[in-house]
């Protein structure tokens, strides 16, 4: 399907190495890892159910929900009317009624018609009731454009969600995290927006067969380095690793942090890294303006001011909607080249040539 075709210049990057894997690990794709996580949750917890537009169709939402309705029955995994706001409310009510709903949106853009239930209701329900009623609802939101997806089928809206008190925002970058963070999100007692990146779907990584959780709010160092820190998430993680490899050839030793979750944000990990490297590049799949990179830059400017030896650089989207033309897409999406340029600039700042 043409939708799935993504410029190989973008996905042709290496798989992030997983730490602590001893014997030859089992390699599966990010999309298989999601499917495996969902299968585990449905199997282990009778309260879990999955719903959304097209969850039982032959494509299975990019293959992430494939055949779950056959395995678990149409009560546990079902197709729905195209009514996103109502579906979100349905998820809230089902959660209040003691279930563990997982709502899937094949595009994050479609969630925008459900913002009333997400922001006015799901996010506020616990607070408004003085803590009496929690809403354990997971909303899978899929981002990433390409192939002319254009402005309404590609939007990375993590900042919008993270801006709202009461929502947690998860952005896995590896197959292993996709499964572990998904299971952790399902176990949370609050609404979680679980953001998957389509350009990661085909990337393989070592994934343990057993069920496991990766706790929310704990970032991870994907590559150790001493000269400069990149704080990245989602698809920007493999891009950053690729950029770090290129920088290494220029004797710049980059540390790459994978935030894993945007909210809660593991700022401490960034802080510790900055105390060592003194230089920061923030890489985000979303827009710069009022975005995640702005938030992290503000935190670093405030908490690591004394450690910083260079301005903070941001690699994120410019203030334009997503274009369709391949020529414009190329200009729109940051590449590892953009990251390398930012690395060089920040690394060289204040150093004698």
């Amino acid at each position, binding site marked *: 399907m043409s939708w799935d075709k993504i410029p190989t210049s973008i996905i042709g990057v290496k798989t992030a190495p997983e730490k602590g894997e001893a014997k030859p690990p089992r390699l599966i794709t990010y999309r298989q890892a999601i499917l495996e996580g969902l299968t585990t949750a449905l199997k282990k917890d009778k309260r879990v*159910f999955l719903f959304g537009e097209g969850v039982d169709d032959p494509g299975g939402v990019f293959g992430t929900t494939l055949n779950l309705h056959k395995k678990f029955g149409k*009560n546990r995994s079902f197709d*729905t*009317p195209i*009514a996103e*706001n*109502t*579906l*979100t*409310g*349905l*998820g*809230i*009510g*089902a*959660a*209040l*009624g*003691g*279930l563990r*709903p997982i709502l899937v949106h094949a595009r994050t853009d479609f969630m925008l018609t459900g913002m*009333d*239930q997400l922001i*006015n*209701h799901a996010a506020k*329900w*616990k*607070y*408004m*009731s*003085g*803590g*009496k*009623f929690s809403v354990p609802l997971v909303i899978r939101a899929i981002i990433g454009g390409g192939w002319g997806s254009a402005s309404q089928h590609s939007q990375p809206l993590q900042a919008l969600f993270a801006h709202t*008190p*009461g929502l*947690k925002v998860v952005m896995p970058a590896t197959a292993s995290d996709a499964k572990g963070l998904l299971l952790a999100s399902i176990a949370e*007692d*609050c609404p979680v927006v679980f953001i998957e990146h389509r350009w990661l779907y085909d990337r393989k990584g070592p994934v343990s067969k057993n069920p496991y959780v990766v706790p929310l709010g704990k970032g991870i160092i994907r590559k150790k380095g001493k000269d400069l820190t990149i704080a990245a998430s989602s698809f920007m993680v493999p891009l950053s690793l690729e950029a770090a490899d290129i920088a290494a050839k220029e004797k710049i030793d980059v540390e790459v942090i994978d935030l894993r979750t945007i909210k809660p944000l593991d700022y401490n990990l960034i802080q510790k890294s900055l105390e060592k490297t003194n230089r920061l590049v923030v890489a985000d799949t979303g827009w710069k303006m009022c975005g995640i990179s702005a938030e992290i830059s503000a935190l670093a400017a405030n908490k690591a001011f004394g450690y910083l030896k260079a301005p903070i650089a941001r690699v994120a989207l410019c203030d334009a909607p997503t274009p369709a033309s391949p020529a414009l897409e190329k200009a729109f999406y940051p590449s590892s080249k953009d990251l390398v340029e930012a690395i060089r600039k920040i690394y060289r700042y204040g150093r004698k040539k």
Partner: protein
Amino acid sequence: MSKLQLKNLKPASLKKIYQGLIKIRKFEEKIVSLYPQQQIRTPVHLYIGQEAIAVGVCLNLRKRDYLFSNHRNHGHLIAKGARLESMLAELHGRIGGCSKGKGGSMHMTSQNAGVFGTSAIVAGNIPIALGCAFASKFKKDNRISVVFFGDGAVDEGTFYECLNFAALKKLPIVFICENNFYATNSPQKVRQVNTDIYQIAKHFKMPGVCVDGNDVFEILKFSAEAIERARKNKGPTLIEARTFRWKTHVGPESDIQKGLRSEKEIWPWKKKCPIKKFVQYVTKNKLLSKNDLDKIDKKVNAQLQRALKTALKSSYPKKTDLKKNVY
């Protein structure tokens, strides 16, 4: 008064009905009298004039059934059995309030009475009630969901989406539209092309009934049918209950005071007061005596007085409570 069969209603039930009606009326009137002191610092949407709907419906519900309400929620909660003192504490912004002072008048809760949170976004409660009904069907726990909303909610798209989904999945839910002909100051007829809301049900292949919202007996009967239908897994019902709000949209004043609606418009509805109607009927037919009613009045007055005293003993939340209960 409706010509319904009331043979089954014993004096004890009639007393219960009266107590329900008068409890809501007095609770709301208490707010009216307290409001000028400015200790209730939360926008109040009063239910005076609409009491029969909440009372009639809730008498047919079980404690475990879910009830979802809206900005005008006090009557629904009281009728479902929420505790007056925690509602009054909530109105006063106290930590002992039913939502720990974080919800105020528009976000009342009662775990005991099955009110698992309240939305003040018009129609926002409907899909959530739908979700609880879905959970009941999923778990086969024999609970049903009832959701109250105004004619204003019928302007919103989610209302139709919910009717569709409920009918599609045969969910155990009863939709109750309290049509008081206004959304804030906007009359129904300037907002809706078909003002017969109950007719919308037909498109979704579910029963739709129109009832006199000021006649508690009529509400009792028709809601009993809808609730039984839901309980027996036969699917949803839409009830349109026509009524009138006596006070202004928000606050303790009247619309006449504010020059928003005329005496001429409100007066006929005051004559059809749901409580007066009930009292006339039961006294004329010698079903309850004046003494019976007086006793209940006194009992409710005392209850309300006690509840207010208890509520005011509760302290304000602490600064450290601000960031609690977010996640």
